[in-house]
């Protein structure tokens, strides 16, 4: 038996040493390389796509288009509803799928500790210098790593979880306290959001105030944080939320519902991010509604605040992609873009845009009230999501 006899049919080597098997291997390798080419790019190559995991409200088509045209890249956004959804996406390989991500409250710090996002250099994002003083890194600590002093995000829009109310249905002196949201006098004419963290945290401020534990030394040695409540305070919150449930018409899931509830007079007041309040004011200005609405930014017991941010994922290496991310963030923080964002998205900006805003816009977007943010408790991670979930479930079942 010769060597050739042992080969399968059709596999005889050609005189040039190039047989069918080699040809097939070459074709397969070529095909695989061709298929993989779009996904295997050297880090130094100019990026063609910028992928962002973000809130939909911030994706303004004209702004995105201007960026795409200027940098000759495609902006590819993926939208999420809540931070936990974005967190899950990042944890299951999202750092390779996204270059930029948005978050608020404690989430950027959590992302950084878990190496889901990377440090950035503010010097490469000049517009960061235009933020209001309260958002400068020396005062706004949520985007700075305590140990290394490195920054890992830029501030974007901000807001509170204040109370919007119908001035004819609820007196101003009542709304200055969180108590108004638990007042039987307004039974059936109150609503709160369906967000469990903020409901518990807001009730936590009131409970700690009533118990006198808010200003006393805390078990963790830190100042009072409504997201870090003791078991006694949580028990008080559960009781309070169960009492409140009887007074609520509903827990709204979206701004449109809240706006309808307020507009129709079905409810007198509800805590919210002031977005519905701004829409109602705009309607009032156009003469579309008669009722007057006001917004209590911070109740006397203390209020909750949030700052949305832009972050760069850890999948972005130094080089052209990081530069593109920095350029994107810098463009988004440009005052004229931020103004556009405020008017369309309905949120207050962390960049000082007073010089290009009308007095009405300055009032509506709380541009002279940014300092009040320092008196608010920032959205944070519940000390134990498990314990908080039990409180919320028991309230819902009661």
């Amino acid at each position, binding site marked *: 038996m010769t060597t050739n006899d042992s080969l399968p049919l059709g596999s005889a080597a050609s005189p040039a040493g190039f047989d069918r098997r080699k040809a097939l291997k070459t074709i397969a390798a070529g095909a695989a390389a061709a298929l993989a080419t779009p996904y295997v790019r050297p880090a130094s190559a100019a990026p063609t796509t910028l992928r962002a995991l973000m809130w939909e409200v911030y994706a303004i088509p004209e702004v995105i288009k201007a960026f795409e045209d200027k940098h000759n890249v495609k902006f590819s956004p993926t939208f999420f509803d809540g931070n936990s959804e974005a967190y899950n996406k990042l944890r299951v390989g999202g750092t390779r799928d996204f270059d930029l991500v948005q978050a608020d409250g404690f989430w950027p710090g959590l992302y950084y500790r878990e190496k889901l996002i990377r440090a950035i250099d503010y010097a490469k994002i000049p517009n960061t210098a235009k933020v209001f003083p309260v958002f400068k890194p020396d005062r706004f600590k949520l985007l700075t790593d305590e140990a290394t002093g490195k920054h890992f995000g830029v501030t974007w829009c901000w807001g509170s979880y204040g109370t919007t109310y119908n001035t004819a249905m609820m007196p101003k002196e009542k709304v200055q306290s969180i108590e108004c949201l638990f007042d039987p006098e307004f039974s059936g004419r109150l609503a709160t959001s369906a967000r469990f963290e903020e409901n518990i945290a807001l009730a936590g401020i009131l409970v700690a105030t009533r118990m006198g534990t808010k200003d006393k030394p805390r078990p963790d040695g830190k100042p009072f944080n409504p997201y870090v409540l003791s078991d006694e305070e949580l028990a008080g919150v559960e009781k309070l939320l169960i009492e409140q449930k009887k007074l609520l018409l509903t827990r709204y899931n979206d701004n449109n*519902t809240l706006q309808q509830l307020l507009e129709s007079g*079905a409810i007198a007041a509800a805590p919210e991010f002031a977005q519905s309040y701004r829409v109602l004011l705009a309607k009032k200005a156009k003469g579309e509604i008669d009722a007057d609405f006001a917004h209590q930014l911070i109740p006397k017991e203390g209020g909750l605040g949030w700052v949305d941010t832009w972050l760069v994922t850890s999948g972005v290496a130094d080089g052209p992609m990081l530069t593109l991310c920095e350029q994107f963030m810098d463009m988004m923080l440009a005052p004229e873009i931020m103004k556009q964002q405020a008017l369309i998205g309905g949120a207050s900006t962390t960049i000082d845009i007073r010089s290009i805003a009308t007095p009405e816009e300055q009032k509506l977007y709380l541009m002279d009230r940014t300092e009040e943010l320092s008196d608010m408790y920032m959205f944070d991670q519940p000390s134990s*999501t*498990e314990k908080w979930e039990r409180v919320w479930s028991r309230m819902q079942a009661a």
Partner: protein
Amino acid sequence: MRTRLAPWLTLGVPTVFLVALFVLPLLSMLVLSVWRTENYHIVQDWNLRNYWVLATDGAYATFLLRSIAMATAVSVICTAIAWPVAYGITLYGGRYKLLLTLGFAVPFLTGEVLRVIALQGLLGPVGLVNGVLMSLGAAPLRAIMYTNVASAIGLVYLYLPIVVTVIYLSLLNFDQRLLDAAKIFGASPARAFFEIAWPLNLFGTLIGFALCFIPCLSATLAPRFLGGPNGTLYGMAMAQQFGESGTWALGAAMGVVLFALSIAAVFVAFRTVDLRRTGFTGFGRG
């Protein structure tokens, strides 16, 4: 060759599909249910704590009981409405039978979220119903604004087309001449219906009931958008575990319990009914 391949292809493909998209996710859910979560992290610590929480914390039992009551009420209402509708189409639909039945599928051309939100607009404080009432000087109907009644209306609206279609398909295979025969032998229309039409279409009715009951048990959207503060059902509470609270392991345990209960309900239903007397034709000729 074709006869040997045909069973493998016709049964094999669905089996692979079921294993990949149903059995494996269910197994992963089972595994997750015996782990635990701690501040948005899954800890692979094997224990039955989640089941213990479900068994001992009354809140979850309340959600489950509420869901069972809601699913039963909605399924009974759907069946009660669907029977005369399907029967009417079968008897009087003439050449428009198919068109009339397909008409019930029209709402499915839009997404479930859209349908629930549309209903929220209809039943809400500035919705059509209350808008008309208030324009007539009457007080708004609070019973349909963010209550369990509103949830039930929403669920009936969502699942009625399915029940009508299933009962209609059952009636299509029912030989109407049996009713004529009963009447000829002196049975009243009511007796003919209850002794012939109903029992011989019981299998189809049960399928329709089950196809409404089981999704109602895990309903999320309707109670969330229509239910109000007292409207939290089991499915909504379960979705919460996978959403903002991030207590995925507890949610997985809730899912396993729901699955087991659904299977048990179907099993009990079919054990208590003699399929041979219900119009079921799946036993073959033997």
